[in-house]
């Protein structure tokens, strides 16, 4: 039964399902390989490998335990660009990349690449959105690279954020003075700039080794926005046309830059983003004196329109050039200015609706500068708040929720102990329990413990047979959460009270999220119902008060 001297050949390209089997004796195959390759590839001396025990991740948990179980689960932070009106309109060079190259020479400096990479990574790290999703593209066979719709993470840094793209700044020189940013002009930091060549060979060599999915290039502002964008264009043009890189490219569009160059760049990039920076215009005025809301929204609109008309063209002529095929994203800083969660989620909602953004990213404010206009954060960056916003964001995009269902003027902030979906369900117990074998898909989606994938499987599965709790478990429903909200064939899993205080306590118990001494909050005993009213902002304030 052992099969030796036999190898399988699969026809490349077309998916695994397209494969053909051939039996060919290994001897023959060996002859076909050139002498040189033979010795290179295959020989004696085995490599021992010892397997460390894998920490199997619990799939059920990841499906629904944390709503962000999607390929884009990144949670990160921010720098950003945005600018006033264009001050000096630079004469635009002809579309070619040459002119940009000359421009960059003077900024390049003589530091070794290792040093430059350190400085310009350090300067870029507060930027969120290291995602490589949104576009599926096969390689042409003439270059290097392809892209996957869901994106691929290649590593995770010590803060647990995903590393998908080579996230760097072109330069950390900047003429602006945004209060929250390390690169602001008034900071005394080491400055440098890459040359387009350096960016290209870093990207190619990292990509080839499967370190990254592509490049995320952004930059401080040299001279003016258009000039800076021209530099970025030069590098990206080279990467695409000289180095024939076909992987993922995300570039920042700098507000205030000429529409023409944003368009040109959009034809080379997969994703573009314009940073909103702060949730409200007022916040922006206070912390980013050189920027304003109108100039930020302008390129955002331009990119949106560009995407729409490019899609129409591609529908007509298959080979029409694609403009920003992976869509547009933005990001805002959370906790540097006093907006409530309700305001933030509402802003995100309108960005999705009015600007058709693919993603809005939130970044917990990290206090990198000493500045009296910036809030002190003794408890570190507001990570829990950021996490809740991402959860709510998923509810908006995939679960059919609206911002005003999740929060309101009266309850403007998310709960510290419960995720937004549980929180919503607990406030709408009159809608539960729902019958799993009958409830419409949209209703199933709203049940804590049921995610998008499990809701789909339920709907498909129940057409063939009646589902029991056992089946739900196999489908991936997190029963320990869902059991309070569902019934199968008229029966709930256990006899359980449908009562807010009771369910809250049980949910917190299963998640081990019970605060250590709940009864001493406010100096007196509290019910779980009251506890569920604590939001992150109040909670943090309370903790702050305790510290003082």
């Amino acid at each position: 039964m052992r099969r030796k001297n036999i190898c399988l050949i699969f026809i490349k390209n077309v998916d695994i399902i397209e494969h053909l089997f051939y039996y060919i004796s290994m001897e023959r195959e060996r002859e076909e390989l050139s002498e040189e390759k033979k010795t290179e590839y295959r020989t004696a001396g085995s490599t021992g490998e010892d397997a460390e025990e894998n920490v199997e991740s619990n799939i059920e948990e990841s499906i629904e335990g944390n709503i962000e179980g999607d390929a884009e689960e990144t949670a990160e932070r921010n720098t950003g660009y945005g600018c006033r009106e264009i001050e000096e309109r630079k004469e635009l060079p002809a579309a070619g990349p040459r002119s940009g190259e000359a421009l960059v020479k003077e900024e390049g400096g003589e530091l070794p690449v290792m040093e430059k990479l350190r400085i310009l990574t350090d300067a870029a790290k507060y930027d969120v959105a290291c995602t490589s999703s949104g576009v599926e593209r096969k390689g042409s066979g003439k270059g290097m690279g392809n892209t996957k719709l869901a994106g691929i993470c290649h590593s995770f840094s010590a803060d647990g954020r995903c590393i998908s793209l080579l996230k760097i700044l072109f330069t950390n020189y900047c003429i602006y003075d945004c209060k929250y940013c390390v690169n602001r002009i008034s900071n005394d930091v080491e400055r440098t700039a890459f040359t387009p060549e350096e960016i290209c060979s870093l990207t190619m060599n990292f990509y080839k080794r499967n370190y990254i999915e592509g490049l995320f290039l952004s930059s401080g502002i040299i001279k003016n926005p258009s000039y800076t964008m021209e530099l970025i264009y030069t590098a990206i043009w080279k990467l695409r046309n000289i180095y024939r890189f076909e992987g993922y490219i995300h570039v920042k569009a700098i507000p205030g830059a000429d529409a023409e160059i944003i368009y040109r760049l959009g034809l080379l990039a997969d994703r573009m983003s314009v940073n909103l920076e702060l949730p409200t215009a007022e916040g922006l005025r206070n912390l980013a004196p050189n920027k304003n809301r109108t100039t930020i929204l302008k390129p955002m609109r331009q990119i949106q329109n560009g995407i729409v008309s490019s899609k129409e063209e591609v529908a007509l002529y298959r080979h029409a050039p694609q403009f920003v095929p992976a869509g547009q994203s933005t990001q805002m800083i959370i906790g540097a200015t006093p907006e409530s969660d309700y305001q933030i989620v509402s802003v995100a909602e309108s960005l999705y609706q009015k600007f058709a953004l693919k993603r809005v990213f939130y970044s917990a404010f990290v206090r990198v500068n000493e500045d009296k206009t910036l809030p002190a954060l003794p408890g570190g960056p507001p990570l829990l708040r950021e996490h809740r916003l991402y959860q709510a964001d998923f509810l908006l995009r995939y679960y059919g929720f609206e911002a005003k269902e999740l929060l309101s003027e009266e309850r403007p902030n998310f709960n510290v102990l419960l995720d937004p979906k549980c929180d919503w369900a607990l406030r709408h117990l009159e809608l539960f329990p729902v019958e799993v074998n009958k409830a419409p898909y949209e209703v199933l989606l709203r049940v804590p413990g049921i995610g998008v994938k499990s809701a789909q499987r339920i709907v498909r599965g129940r057409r063939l047979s009646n589902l029991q709790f056992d089946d739900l478990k196999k489908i991936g429903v997190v029963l320990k959460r869902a059991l309070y909200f569902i019934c199968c064939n008229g029966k709930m899993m256990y006899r359980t009270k449908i009562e807010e205080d009771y369910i809250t306590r049980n949910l917190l118990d299963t998640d081990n999220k019970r605060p250590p001494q709940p009864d001493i909050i406010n100096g007196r005993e509290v019910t779980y119902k009251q506890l569920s009213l604590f939001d992150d902002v109040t909670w943090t304030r309370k903790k702050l008060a305790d510290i003082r």
Partner: protein
Amino acid sequence: MEIVVFLCENSIEGILTGVYDAWAEALSSGLGHARCRLQTELLQPELFCTYRETAPDMEKAGKVIRTLRKRLGEEVYECLCYAMASREPDKAEAVYKTIVAGLSMKQGYRVLDKVTDPYVARCFDLKRNVGSEIHRELEFLRFQELRSGVLLAKIHPKNDVLMYLGPHFSDRLPLENFLIYDMSRRKALFHEKEKDWYMMEALELDAGKAGRISTEEEYYQDLFRMFCHTIAIESRENRALQRQFLPLYFRDVMPEFA
């Protein structure tokens, strides 16, 4: 009651040949599928079981493949392929019985929706497990450039996923010569520049030659290590989260953790 257990080779064509033979037996002897079983290895011999070995046969496997793709569709076929790559000992039986279930349905392409069928559920589980390992290899596998310019990646997946990495990397690196080596199963996936990819079994890697890396290799490893280190935000450090996404199991081949 007599049960016939078919022992087949642990490979796609082995298992599918087993399915073919078991099927023929179930029908011809009147045993029915309930009394036929398919296994890739002889675990503990049981009482009242007859064991029969089946040798992989490309023709039989090919017939089964064509039937599956025609009657059950590509999605189900892909699921079964993934399940057959699993390291779990009960995979052949789960696949066999899922095929039985699927072909007994009018709309066979819906067989995966039969969540109440334990074999289908098992297949789905196996597929999910294998699928996630494939994805992790796409994420965490690392190539080293050898002096000859060949890119070499060494992996040690728990399931037999090597084959499923071929389409991805050959589409992505069409102009490179690369080699992915499964250290546990001693087999390799080759891709020759501008050519197709193919697999070879029973190969040993020459530690000396495989260790001769190009002059630039270490430089880029250093650059990437420094990049990964620098990109982390100190005030957000969270090693547990990092470990959750990137289990230690994968890190031995990743230069950023060297």
